[in-house]
């Protein structure tokens, strides 16, 4: 096994876990942690460490990290900061990773010395340190979590976040969008393990195919650059950088307590290493999703995009948005238009590009008409991407429930008939109505199961496509 993977496996897939700070009353954060990882299916030994209690939450407690029956892969620590250095120093080489939730370290002036003591103690105790001031790790492979969620399948998206709160947002929103994680690590003050260590790990980890980073201040920026430079975008890396404006920078400094780099450097980083710079949390998640579901094509970067769906005005606006993003939603050549005209679709249907089909058209043959349309688009038009957008409101109540399924399944059949021709993206537009939201959620889950990336608006899909194209172009420009 790769040495880096081997080094970090005990963090992502611990066999034994110790918990420091759990109370006999069962109400402290470490008690919650014990409950959550059990719910997530962690079945290995859990060792509570407590100065006096014989037992916590039905588990036998130990006095010190050196006293447990087995060595400890992962230790969760939430006690007063000043008590932690002696605890770690006494571990006697029996702990591989210690995660410190507690704050009051380097993120405040008066905590700087204590943070140094913490680092020294971790070295003395022979372990790597995550945090302090960090929520911890979400690793479905290892049944670890810091946020309240039920069991979820492990996946291929690995994320490192310098903010715990935003890390929580990324996990929860990402899961709801169909992202499956190989891990999400919050690194807090990065006293020892920093974003570059996680970047290096995710590149080495065979389970991870897509990497996401939320960074505010990176003292290890040079190392991030060198790793990205050496890897040449072998796996797509999506970077969300906080503090890119002067005021944002000031906010980041007070959040993590260290100086952030210049925005020009981050833009340069993106241009020369091919990592994608996302502008917002939504764009970050949309972009992770597209890389999780679609295979980038270095030999044929995405240029020509077809929009197909219901909603004339929406597709006109989207055409504008895509043009601004440099994505080409250009009218079809005459042969494609002629072939579509042969279908004799009802009046009100537009068959250039964007292809605008009112619900009346789409419910023909219970939605199977979409197969004929997409077949012509793929067979004759040969675009690099098709964005199918469905405004749910006109469907719900007006057509049979299966029409929506049939439209998408019809497109999927054509997709399979032309393997590797075009990227397929689905946009499910909802007006926020309760019934429609419920239908959308259910429908999105089905689509995600089929490996289709689903977006909330046509524009969001455009930003993700732009990122995919940037990645494809980078690979193409650096090949050979």
């Amino acid at each position: 096994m790769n040495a880096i993977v081997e080094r970090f496996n005990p963090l992502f897939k611990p066999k034994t876990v110790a918990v420091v700070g759990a109370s006999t009353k069962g109400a402290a954060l470490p008690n919650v942690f014990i409950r959550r990882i059990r719910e997530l299916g962690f079945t290995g030994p859990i060792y509570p460490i407590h100065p006096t209690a014989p037992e916590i939450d039905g588990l036998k407690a130990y006095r010190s990290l050196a006293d447990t029956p087995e060595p400890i892969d992962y230790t969760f620590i939430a006690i007063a900061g000043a008590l932690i250095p002696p605890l770690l120093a006494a571990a006697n080489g029996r702990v591989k990773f210690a995660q410190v939730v507690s704050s009051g370290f380097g993120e405040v002036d008066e905590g700087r010395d204590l943070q140094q003591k913490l680092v020294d103690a971790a070295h003395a105790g022979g372990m790597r340190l995550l945090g302090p001031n960090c929520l911890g790790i979400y690793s479905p492979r290892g049944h670890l979590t810091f946020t309240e969620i039920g069991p979820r399948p492990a996946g291929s998206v690995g994320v490192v976040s310098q903010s715990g709160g935003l890390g929580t947002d990324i996990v929860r929103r990402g899961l709801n969008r169909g992202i499956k994680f190989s891990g999400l690590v919050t690194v807090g003050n990065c006293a020892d393990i920093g974003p570059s260590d996680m970047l290096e790990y995710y590149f080495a980890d065979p389970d991870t195919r897509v990497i996401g980073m939320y960074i505010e201040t990176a003292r290890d920026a040079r190392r991030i650059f060198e790793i990205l430079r050496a890897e040449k975008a072998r796996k797509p890396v999506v970077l969300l950088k906080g503090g890119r404006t002067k005021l944002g920078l000031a906010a980041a400094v007070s959040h993590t307590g260290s100086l952030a780099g210049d925005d020009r450097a981050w833009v340069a980083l993106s241009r020369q290493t091919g990592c994608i710079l996302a502008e917002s949390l939504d764009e970050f998640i949309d972009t992770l999703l597209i890389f999780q579901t679609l295979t980038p094509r270095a030999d044929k970067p995405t240029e020509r995009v077809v929009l197909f769906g219901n909603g004339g005005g929406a597709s006109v606006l989207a055409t504008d948005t895509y043009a601004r993003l440099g994505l080409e939603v250009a009218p079809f050549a005459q042969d494609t238009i002629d072939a579509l005209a042969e279908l004799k679709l009802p009046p009100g249907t537009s068959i250039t590009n964007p292809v605008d089909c009112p619900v009346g058209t789409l419910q023909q043959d219970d939605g199977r008409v979409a197969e004929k349309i997409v077949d012509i688009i793929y067979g004759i038009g040969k675009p690099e991407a098709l964005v199918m957008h469905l405004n749910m409101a006109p469907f719900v109540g007006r057509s049979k429930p299966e029409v929506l399924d049939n439209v998408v399944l019809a497109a999927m059949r054509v997709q399979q008939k032309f393997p590797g021709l075009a990227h397929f993206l689905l946009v499910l537009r909802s007006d926020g109505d309760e019934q429609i939201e419920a239908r959308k959620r259910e429908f999105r889950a089905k689509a995600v199961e089929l490996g289709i990336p689903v977006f909330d608006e046509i524009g969001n899909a455009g930003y993700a496509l732009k990122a995919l194209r940037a990645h494809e172009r980078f690979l193409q420009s650096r090949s050979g």
Partner: protein
Amino acid sequence: MTAQKLIAAAKQDGRAALDELAGKQLLASFGISVPKSVITKDAAAVAQAIAGMQPPFALKVMSPEILHKSDAGGVKIGLKNAEELEQAITAMAAAPQIKTARVDGWLIEEMAPAGQEVVVGAVRDPNFGPLVMVGLGGIFVEILADVAFRICPITRLDAAEMLDELKGVALLDGARGRVRASREAIIDVLLKIGGENGLLMQHAEDFKEADINPLIVSANGAVAVDARFVLA
């Protein structure tokens, strides 16, 4: 003089920056073209100093106390012979800001052939290390901030992409009646500054910032006409 010695000498002198001649010698030691030049201590020695050099000449005051030579009246261009140079030195020495300053000498340079003004710069980022920058000269850099940055070291492809990133890139091809400027010559300078074995990688800790402004680029080559290296 080698790069190390130039830097050491400036530090020993207590300078905040390399003087213009030292800056150009540093560039020359990395293979970047600089104008043929000579320093004279006084007007009387000019004729002897410029023997074998081609007019027209540029004349610049050398003084660690004068940061903006043009503003102080310390730059004169288009001088045709020794006589014009002597007169210019005498006049320059009498300018109010120069009269009171410590003057190390007078720099006489052959003028670069006509071309487009380009700026090549460098800054040291505390986390990323040295960055290299390129922009088109004059208003493009100063007012429009039309510049591109990369983290060092850069590759030839990175350098080419930096140029393509400039909004004014078409000007290099001779748009709006300009002289065509050699892209390859600019790319070569960028690599000598920011490439794998370039100046910035070898002296990452020595400089806080630097710029070549202007780099005069013609269809055949590029010449660094002014250089500023601020010591770290």
